[in-house]
């Protein structure tokens, strides 16, 4: 077995003609007898033929080649890898929920609708916004929903001249990409020397052509936009809307409500801040919240309560339309609901407080080794950089790979783009001092290695299933399938 794991065999390479896994009953009639020949498949698909045991071993062994939150500290900045409680796995998959068809009679899905409605209410309360849609399937999908909501709003007002979206250079790449998909021209602005929005630069580009200003709060260098209230005033004075990318909401959960900053709309990432697992890349869920006068433009349908009954309201003449075929990534929403129900008004602040405490602790302990790019208290994550003169040619990517060998997943690297050799570290509130101390120790050890034996860092990783991968080789002659 060890030999096979080492060889990284594909399922198709383990396939043996005629071997069977799961079987089904024999059909009453053959396809050839029911359909004309030209409707039928001509050749058998080249899929693996394996026993059930082979399949179980194959995927179990593959899983063991992953670092994951359940086994490793995962300080991936902006990704909020907090603990995903096991109870929510069980509860989100209860048959009552998982067997519900999206076109089931409404009377048969009152439990799901009640939960979704109550989740909306909870999200409204913790953000201060007036209405939420749970329809978007991910954060970027939420962004598109938000920007299209704004577009529908301006259209209803006849303000067709608003064709621009302003995005700071620290924004997630999804922000400009989203604005472009929505048919807007992207105006990039540079950040000030303190890592926050340069208000003068913003004022210069704000005009009656501005539809939306998109801000990530806290921003991607881990700092709170200290002038956000004035920025909101400037944006509103120009007749535009302020969109908050809520990917970093963990820094604020339970200590502040974005609506109070003057934010008009925001998305949340239920798969980050609300403890739903990432599943190796998804599914996520990116609910969008808006102030009252934008609610009518949200995607349809909306989950509403009529008397004691929960319904999907499709009668929304001003709605931007549908964002996906069916309403939301429900099983992700169920987990987020579970998460919020385990806090109350007196305890929710622990989320942001412990997240911020943990990030600052790491920042301060690593100060002399890998200093923060902006030397100021950070929020939920700290963005560190390299002291180039001490690095012996070692780069951030090398450090990331060496961390893997020390049993830690790597921070987000080379982002944000304005920070050279960036390492973005987000411990989240569910880690404790002992784990952070171990991580800091590993970072300090790597620093010593860089000084005394840089080669070992340069060659990392040495202890993973594969050595350093040449990513360029994959793009040159892409092999994307067997």
């Amino acid at each position, binding site marked *: 077995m060890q030999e096979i794991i080492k060889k990284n065999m594909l399922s198709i390479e383990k396939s043996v003609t005629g071997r069977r896994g799961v079987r089904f009953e024999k059909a009453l009639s053959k396809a050839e007898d029911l359909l004309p020949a030209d409707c039928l498949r001509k050749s058998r698909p080249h*899929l693996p033929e394996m026993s059930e045991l082979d399949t*179980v071993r194959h995927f179990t062994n593959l899983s063991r080649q992953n670092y994951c939150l359940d086994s490793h500290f995962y300080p991936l900045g902006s990704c909020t890898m907090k603990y995903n409680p096991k109870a929510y796995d069980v509860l989100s998959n209860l048959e009552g929920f998982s067997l519900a068809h999206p076109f089931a009679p409404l009377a048969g899905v009152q439990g799901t609708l009640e939960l979704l409605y109550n989740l909306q209410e909870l999200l409204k309360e913790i953000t201060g916004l007036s209405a939420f849609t749970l329809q978007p399937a991910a954060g970027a999908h939420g962004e598109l929903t938000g920007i299209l909501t704004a577009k529908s709003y301006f259209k209803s007002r006849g303000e067709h001249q608003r064709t621009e979206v302003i995005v700071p250079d620290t924004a997630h790449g999804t922000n400009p990409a989203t604005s472009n998909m929505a048919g807007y021209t992207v105006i990039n602005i540079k950040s000030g020397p303190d890592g926050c929005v340069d208000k003068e630069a913003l004022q210069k580009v704000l005009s009656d052509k501005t539809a939306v200003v998109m801000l990530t709060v806290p921003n991607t260098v881990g700092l709170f936009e200290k002038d956000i209230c004035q920025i909101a005033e400037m944006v509103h004075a120009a007749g535009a809307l302020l969109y908050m990318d809520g990917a970093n909401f963990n820094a604020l959960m339970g200590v502040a409500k974005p609506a109070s900053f003057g934010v008009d709309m925001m998305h949340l990432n239920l798969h980050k801040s609300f403890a739903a697992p990432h599943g190796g890349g998804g599914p996520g869920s990116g609910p969008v919240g808006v102030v009252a006068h934008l609610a009518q433009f949200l995607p349809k349908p909306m989950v509403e309560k009529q008397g004691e009954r929960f319904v999907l309201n499709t009668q929304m003449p001003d709605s931007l339309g549908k964002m996906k075929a069916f309403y939301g990534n429900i099983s992700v929403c169920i987990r987020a609901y579970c998460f919020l*129900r385990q806090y109350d008004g007196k305890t929710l602040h622990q989320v942001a407080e412990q997240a911020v405490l943990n990030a600052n*602790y790491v920042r301060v302990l690593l100060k002399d080794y890998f200093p923060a790019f902006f030397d100021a208290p950070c929020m939920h994550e700290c963005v560190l950089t390299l002291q180039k003169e001490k690095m012996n040619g070692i780069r951030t990517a090398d450090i990331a790979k060496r961390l893997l060998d020390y049993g830690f997943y790597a921070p987000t690297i080379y982002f944000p783009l304005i920070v050279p050799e960036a390492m973005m570290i987000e411990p989240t509130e569910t880690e*404790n001092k002992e784990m952070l101390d171990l991580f800091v120790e590993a970072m300090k050890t790597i620093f010593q290695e860089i000084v005394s034996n840089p080669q070992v860092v340069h060659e990392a990783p040495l202890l993973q299933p594969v050595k350093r991968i040449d990513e360029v080789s994959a793009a040159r002659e892409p092999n994307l399938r067997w």
Partner: protein
Amino acid sequence: MFTSNTAENEKEMLEKIGVSSVKELFKSIPENLLYPSFNLPSALTEEALHKHLRELAGKNKSYLNFVGAGWEEHFIPSAVNALSSRGEFLTAYTPYQAEASQGTLQTIYEFQSSICALFDMDVCSASHYDGATALAEACLASCRVKNRKKIIYSAGLHPHYKEVLHTYLKNVPEIILQEVPLKEGLTDQQALQAVLAEDTACVAIAGPNFLGQLEPMQALSHVVHQAGALFVAVVNPLSLGVLQTPGEYDADFAVAEGQCLGNAMHFGGPGLGIFTCKQAYVRQVPGRIVGIAKDKDGKRSFVLTLQAREQHIRRERAASNICSNEALCALNAVIYLTLIGPEGLREVASLNLSRAHALKELLEETGHKIKFTGPFYNEFVIECKVPASEVIEKLQAQGIAAGYDLGQVCDCLKNCLLVCVTETKTTEDLQKYARALGGI
């Protein structure tokens, strides 16, 4: 909940940071906005949470389900969830650090390969949100490939897909969307010919279409290609166990909802957007793709590749804004396909086909009218004597979800019921359905 620093930890940490309280770390937030009151229900312990969620789940009802319409009930072998729910898969992030994510990366490569084999297409992405958004992205990609602005689609597309298509495309400058009507339940080829022109980027057609009818995909693809446009097929992945594949009829893009491959229904989400295309368009694919690479020792390994298309590199010039996708649903799909293999796939698709036909015959024997006469897979339309909504209500009382009320799509179909039969329905279930439908 789930925070684990003790008071002693916190004290030591604050000392090291050099502040006297956690609150001091929030100084950059205007003080008057800090610590507002939160009106939340009382916190639940895990035990109380279990009780509460079970109560909510208990408020849903289960039906003998004959509703499909783009989302299907299928048997999911136990090994699918047993494997995909392993924490190693479930609690990993997008595999940015490839060396520590080979498990996820290889499963995505196998997913891409399996779907390419099933569809007979060259390239498959790591996944998209759902079938509808995958379709919208394929149409956008077609416009980029052809540098043309007109998108034609058949009225036989799922009505929700049409709505999503409009949401995604109506905001893109200069794009024109045009619908081609149906005739006798199939895309009207004459009408299609009439609107195909030099400015047409692509034509999107579903086979089977929303009424369950198998469109003549080969002929349609030919017509579209003759006009110099691209052919975008929307398919049912499981049906490809028996049906002609998008590769066989030369589709340029083929997209699908992959929920039917090992994913639970969950009231419509998460689903699995499947996005495939010909090799020539690989650089227009939205979102993640995994490819084979070599490590330092020359060993085969897997990485996210062709990232120059993506938002984190190209920002406003990216092929799409997609970042998170539906990786875990894709994992369910590849485990499902690996478990059943090519023979199981043929079996399950044949079962869907034959049981749906068995129900059709049963209903015809009892005097029911089947609206369309063309070939179909696992869905067909019953024309009732009364509005379909009334039929649904009547059967609901007997614990049966009778189908999808086509009156929602068009008043002209208000007596029509779209019924779906999957392998989960036994002969007894079919008889029960026919009896319940009785004389309506």
